[in-house]
């Protein structure tokens, strides 16, 4: 393919591999849902498979990604950051999409499928609010009703995004069950879907949930990795980056990124939220500290207690505050094709300010974990001179007030 350039056409690579059996990535994945939802998931799987191989659907999707979402996004070479770290750092700029994060790629695809299935309403869960905003945006664009579930804790720390969703015509439900964060928002969205599945599509925001979601969302996000591969080669005179790094909550920006590099020699690294430290028990590192289980419709790795009750995650970033991870990541970790590291809240804050100061780019707290990890490891486990591509999954406006308060000790007026 030709090198994607901002303002140019969006090119989609051919579809990637399907999971095997009933949505399996090695031992992970599957479809563990109440019977009520099974027929809808079967329909969604069939509709997606047909649509994703149809030129008409793909052309319309590519056109929307271009004219509406503002793709292709560029890859920016970070000269001052590279000099500071002794590496060669490239950033895939998902922060420059409409709505400010990679989430838009997925919701546009799912909104098109919703219309195709004759459904009129979208529901979604959201942690940081980015997926909720993206879903509300797509709902407005397609004339669909929209209901977003958001943990009460996140409603508090992401007030700006709550208002944005309401402005876009969505209703936001503040979820108080359980730990009142992302996992509980997913529970309540699934409960709502059980009641309304005949008219409603559940627009899951990450590479998680029951089959076909992990596969489908990876396919809607793979444009990130496919573009980045060609753009990196143009910058690196035909070579691939030696290391490709992305933050991982549920894992959609990382899975989309990895999909583009899975057949290259690049080392793939996902960075989980270490919160207050892996030993503190206050973190979101499902690969590092999780064990196999079945939650939210999928078999994957989850933080659990000795009886199998799910443990509340912790992260400074609402988008990584999830005790599980998408099943394909669990499989990539098991096979060794990708490895999973982690960065603490403090390391993420260091990454946040580092990118702002050296490149004039304010990252969201989620990808700030990836930047923080690279900064920590530069010259240590990452040898000097290594070429590193980091996916900047979103911009940091939503986090500015929270970070300001954290760093200055004072609330912005």
């Amino acid at each position: 393919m030709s090198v994607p350039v901002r303002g140019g056409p969006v090119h989609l690579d051919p579809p990637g591999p399907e999971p095997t059996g009933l949505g399996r990535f090695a031992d992970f994945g599957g479809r563990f849902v109440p019977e009520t939802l099974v027929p809808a998931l079967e329909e969604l799987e069939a509709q997606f498979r047909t649509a994703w191989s149809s030129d008409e659907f793909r052309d319309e999707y590519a056109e929307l990604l271009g004219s509406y979402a503002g793709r292709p996004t560029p890859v920016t070479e970070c000269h001052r950051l590279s000099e500071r770290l002794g590496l060669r750092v490239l950033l895939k700029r998902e922060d420059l999409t409409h709505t400010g994060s990679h989430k838009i790629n997925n919701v546009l695809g799912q909104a098109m499928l919703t219309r195709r299935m004759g459904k009129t309403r979208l529901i979604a869960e959201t942690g940081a609010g980015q997926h909720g905003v993206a879903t509300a945006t797509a709902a407005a664009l397609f004339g669909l009703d929209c209901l977003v579930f958001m943990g009460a804790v996140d409603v508090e720390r992401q007030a700006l995004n709550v208002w944005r969703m309401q402005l876009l015509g969505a209703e936001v439900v503040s979820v108080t069950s359980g730990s009142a964060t992302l996992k509980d928002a997913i529970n309540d969205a699934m409960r709502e879907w059980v009641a309304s599945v005949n008219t409603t599509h559940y627009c899951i925001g990450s590479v998680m949930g029951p089959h076909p979601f992990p596969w489908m969302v990876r396919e809607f996000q793979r444009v990130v990795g496919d573009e980045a591969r060609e753009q990196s080669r143009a910058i690196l005179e035909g070579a691939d980056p030696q290391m490709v790094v992305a933050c991982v909550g549920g894992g959609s920006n990382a899975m989309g990124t990895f999909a583009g590099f899975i057949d290259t020699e690049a080392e793939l690294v996902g960075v989980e939220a270490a919160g207050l430290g892996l030993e503190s028990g206050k973190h979101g590192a499902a690969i590092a500290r999780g064990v196999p289980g079945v939650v939210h419709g999928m078999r994957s790795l989850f933080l659990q207690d000795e009886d199998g009750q799910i443990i509340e995650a912790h992260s400074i970033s609402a988008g990584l505050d999830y005790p599980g991870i998408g099943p394909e990541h669990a499989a990539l970790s098991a096979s060794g094709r990708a490895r999973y590291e982690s960065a603490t809240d403090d390391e993420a804050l260091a990454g946040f300010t580092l990118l702002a100061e050296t490149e004039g780019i304010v990252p969201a707290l989620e990808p700030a974990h990836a930047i923080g990890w690279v900064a920590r490891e530069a010259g240590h486990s990452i040898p000097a001179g290594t070429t590193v591509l980091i996916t900047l999954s979103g911009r940091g406006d939503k986090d500015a007030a929270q970070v300001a308060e954290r760093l200055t000790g004072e609330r912005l007026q």
Partner: protein
Amino acid sequence: MTVAVEPYLRARRAEGRKLLVPYVTGGLGKHWLEVVRAVVDAGADAVEIGIPFSDPVMDGVTIQEASQRAIALDATPRSILNEAATLDVGVPLLVMTYYNLVLHAGLERFAAELAVAGIAGAIIPDLPLDELAPWAAAADDSGVETVLLAAPTTTPERLLALCERSRGFVYGVSLMGVTGERTSLASQAGEMGSRLKAATDKPALLGVGISTPQQAAEASQHADGVVIGSALVRRLLQGGGPGEAADFIGSVRTALDES
């Protein structure tokens, strides 16, 4: 002594009796075993014992709250089964729980622990037919009957397969939604019951949203009986004990007998 589910329910049905299966959250307060005994004395034909899970996606607010409260009281799958083993109530006992707890314990081990505790059946609402095989093999080996759920959205072909594989009884979800009380019986309940009765000779019960004696009587016109969960658990959450549980289940029993 373990009482097998299906033969017992078939025998009761053959007597012309409408079947009544209450749900009690295991570990919910120190009197929960007394509550089980009380609902049996009040006319239950089997009892579902909930093993609480942190993320119960098929449950509405009442059973969510009961689950959280039981977990906060240190109820675990092990403690609930150990306590249930002391029940000898003469009717079949089943557990209702979520697959993660089963998987975490280990399929064979969990099935064996149920059998040892005198539990005859299991209902796992997030384990649909398509993912059932590994658990079903373990359950069959231990003689545990796995009850499957059918929903208003279940296609005719799937319904036949579900009824074929279900053991103990077939659980028809009477509405589009999760557990919890409703002000009236859902319009889908009658059709769900009729579809089950046309598809299988196994005992067919309706549950989810059946909240009052009148609704139970109405639903039982279309099926062999009903499951009552949230309406009972709410009374327990509000401070009710074995006496209140017996009064409520007794009133449902009366309504079923008079219908």
